[in-house]
């Protein structure tokens, strides 16, 4: 990677580290940062490691109507008082686990933790009941009756609980998941595609108006890298607009 001009090493090195520690591409990290800073209040942006409260995270369109939104925030949060607030690195962890290239093991591990409502390391009857209620909707007419719930959960435990201890632990959960070809749908959202970033880059190069220091650095960083894939980008742009 060629750095153009004299800039400090730390933001670029941080980003490179982040790219290698997650399943996201550089562009996605950049755009994630932009979405994250939009959620911050004005004065918090100057904080070195800002933390966004859970209510602000839940206003993201992708999470707004997801029945597991609170659990997702709580699982990825590293805050001391477990209030579901996320730093930028927690946010990246979240996106990485829900991205397309994350491995099945990562996804199944985080799925298990999301379903584990009481955080005790296994899925027992209460966890499964809450899980089914989230899946079917919380309104009265879409809930299963208690008799049906009991039948369903006993069936689930019959199928998944191999050591018959009444709970589903992580390995049993992963065993069930590995037999399902559908689990690739464990993907949360997609940040806007490369082409919009390319146009953003061209635009900003022309007008010399970079929104943040970080994005300026990242644009120049992979300016060299983008030339080989220019053809692909323009093709994608064209192909997508065609439909």
């Amino acid at each position, binding site marked *: 990677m060629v750095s153009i001009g004299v800039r400090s090493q730390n933001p670029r090195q941080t980003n490179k*580290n982040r790219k*290698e*520690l997650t399943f996201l591409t550089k562009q996605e990290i950049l755009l994630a940062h932009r979405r994250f800073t939009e959620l911050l209040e004005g004065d918090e942006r100057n904080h070195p490691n800002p933390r966004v409260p859970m209510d602000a995270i839940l206003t993201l369109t992708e999470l*707004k*109507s*997801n*029945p*597991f939104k609170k659990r997702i925030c709580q699982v990825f949060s*590293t805050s*001391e008082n*477990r209030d579901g607030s996320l730093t930028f*690195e927690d946010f990246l*962890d979240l996106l*990485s686990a*829900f991205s*397309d*290239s994350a*491995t099945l*093991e990562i996804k199944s591990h*985080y*799925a298990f933790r999301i379903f584990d409502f009481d*955080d*005790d*390391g*296994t899925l027992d009857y209460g966890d*499964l009941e809450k899980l*089914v209620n989230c*899946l*079917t*909707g919380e309104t009265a007419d*879409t809930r*299963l009756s208690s008799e*049906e719930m009991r*039948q369903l959960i006993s*069936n689930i435990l019959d*199928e998944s609980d191999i*050591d*018959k*201890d009444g709970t589903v*632990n*992580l*390995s049993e*959960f992963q065993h*069930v*998941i590995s*037999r*399902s*070809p*559908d689990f690739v*749908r464990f*993907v*949360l*959202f*997609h*940040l*806007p*595609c*490369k082409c919009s970033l390319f146009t953003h880059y061209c635009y900003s190069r022309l007008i010399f108006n970079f929104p943040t220091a970080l994005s300026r650095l990242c644009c120049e960083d992979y300016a060299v890298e983008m030339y080989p894939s220019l053809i*692909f980008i323009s093709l*994608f742009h064209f192909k997508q607009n065609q439909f």
Partner: protein
Amino acid sequence: MTIEQQRQGLAFSGSGHPTDQESLRFRRVSSRMSTQIYHEPNSSTSLAQEEEQSGSEPTLELRNTVFPMALKKAARQVQQMQVPAQFNGGSWKQKRIKFVRQFKSNVREFLYFFSLWGKTLQKIGGRNLVYASKQPQRLRPRWQTLLSLTGNFGGGVQSYFIFLRFLVILNFVSFLLIAGFVLIPSIVFRSVGIKPESSKADVSSECLKYDPNPQGLVVFYEFFLDLLSGTGFMEYSYLFYGYYNNSVIVTSLVGSHFSYNIPLAYLLTAVFYFAFCLICIIVRMGKAARVAVTTGGSDVRSYSMIVFTGWDYGCLGSKATKLKQRNIYYRLQVDLEEERLKKHAASLTLCNKVTLHSLRVLMFFVAVGLIVATFLAIARATTFSQENSHVPGILGLFYTYLPSIVITLGNFLVPLLCDQIALLEKYPPSATVVVALLRAVVLRLVSLGILLFTLWKQIMCHDSRDKCNLCHYNHEDYQCWETSVGQEMYKLTLFDLLVSIALLVLVEFPRRMVVDHWSCKLTQWVGRQEFVVPSNVLGLVYGQTVVWTGALFCPLLPLINTVKFVILFYCKKITLFYNCRPALRTFRSTSSAIFFLAVLLFGWILALVVMIYSVAVIHPSFACGPFRSFFRMWKIVPESFSTLPEGARDFLFFIGSQAFSIPLFAISCVFMCYFIALASIYGKSVAMLRAQLKLAGQDKQFLVKQIEKMKPLSPQHNEGEQD
């Protein structure tokens, strides 16, 4: 940090028994975690599975771990401090591996561009493709948002379109095969001016009469009638068998020895076409079977699957979320109900069981009676149509299309009646679906068989023996019987397409407009259309069977079928997105793929029987076609055999002899036994491992209970154990 470690420790241990022994496990796990940080993290409790697990790729393995970012960064720093010496060489290797991976993903993106209808298929089924994990992420955003708007139709509907795409490609490649070996040489020889050889057999001139060209002036609408029924100007063309000559070209010029035997090429191309289709079907079936086996036998009511993997975390709006929730609720309810019914059925009294079974037997006979009645109607219609084929005008067109009309009507009405019968039979829902499908399959394919059987009866004059005495076939009605059969198949294909388009325009669009804009009780009850996957797939299988049957007599039929399936794809796509609502009950896609291919194989067998019969039993026409001078079509093979060089002949004789085939058979039996033994051993080891896990769990519980018992007895013992 300690709280997270504790949480992760518990998650890692995987056996969260919420007792006082948490601290014991936490100690153990934290020591394990610390050793992981300072040693090669190549297992992380079997979570990391990167291909290059060497010391030069520590960062990628860290990516596969489930630590939060801060821990990962700390681990990475420690690793980098630990391996400074390898850095130079490792970085070159790293770069090379990274370059290869980038190149591979770029190539995959490029190839994804060229996959036929890939985007449409993704849009229809959500991302339920088996290959979804290999698709590039950058191409998906648009479709994900579209998905939330249009709704996800599920894997069953998508499997229909995947099947359709497979058939399009199969037909197109077969057409290329036929064009390369039969069509283009015929065109070349005809344009060069090579005349057909006259028939060698001494046969009366009656049999050699063949006059398909229209006489005199033709009325203008005759053009369309001929286009639709394959007669007139279309009959004597490359479309049908009768136009091809039996030219055998042997040139022995100086320097070049070129020979081409058109009749042999025609027959062998047909044989290879069948073999190619069989191989494609079996390969695809193998792939589908592998998927079905790895996902564990496709449980009908796998509740764990529905609950653990049923939710789509993509960006759904609130409306789509509610729809999805209702979908899951409905599925769970139906499955639970089915289980209750099964339990109830198992607990019936003997008297009830007897009445139920006798009712089922009665309904079975009723269904069989309906199907047999359809067959009789088809046979009668075919005979009638063949007798009145010379009536001119629109009425004549109606008579020629009569068998197709009766088949289509039968295929529409009889399944409806069978559905009503199924309500009385009270099978469990999954068995009802299977029984209905089997009935529909039998109806469709055997009705085609009846049509062909009736045709053959007429050609071989089973009714009136005197017509066949002269030429060994019915030369009065069929001067070129192969072309007549080809025309029949051509008409069936065309009629199928016309009916689909007519249904789309005249039934489905109006239904949607009526339901959307006029709300009364009737329209609410009828509702928007649902895309019924099984009957649509059976339509595809029927169309493909017709093409296979007719390919020997109408060489351009695969091309016509390709175009027909492409048109059908777009028609069905339009009707799916504009007229249909997402089904509440989704059709299972893994087991159904195998079922569709099995039905297709059944159709292939039917077509093979037809081909073998016409090649081996019926005398080819004297007046037309490439086999006009042969006693049977397959006789060309022994005759051209004799022109082969000595070595090739001996080799082929050896392959056909017992000295070769019996050892080959024995060896393939040995291989089959080996694979069967291997499969049974794997099954047994899986069962054994399951039992072992169960015992290990019981042991663990026993030990924990023992510890609890011993705890109040001796506190100092407790501390000793914790160290």
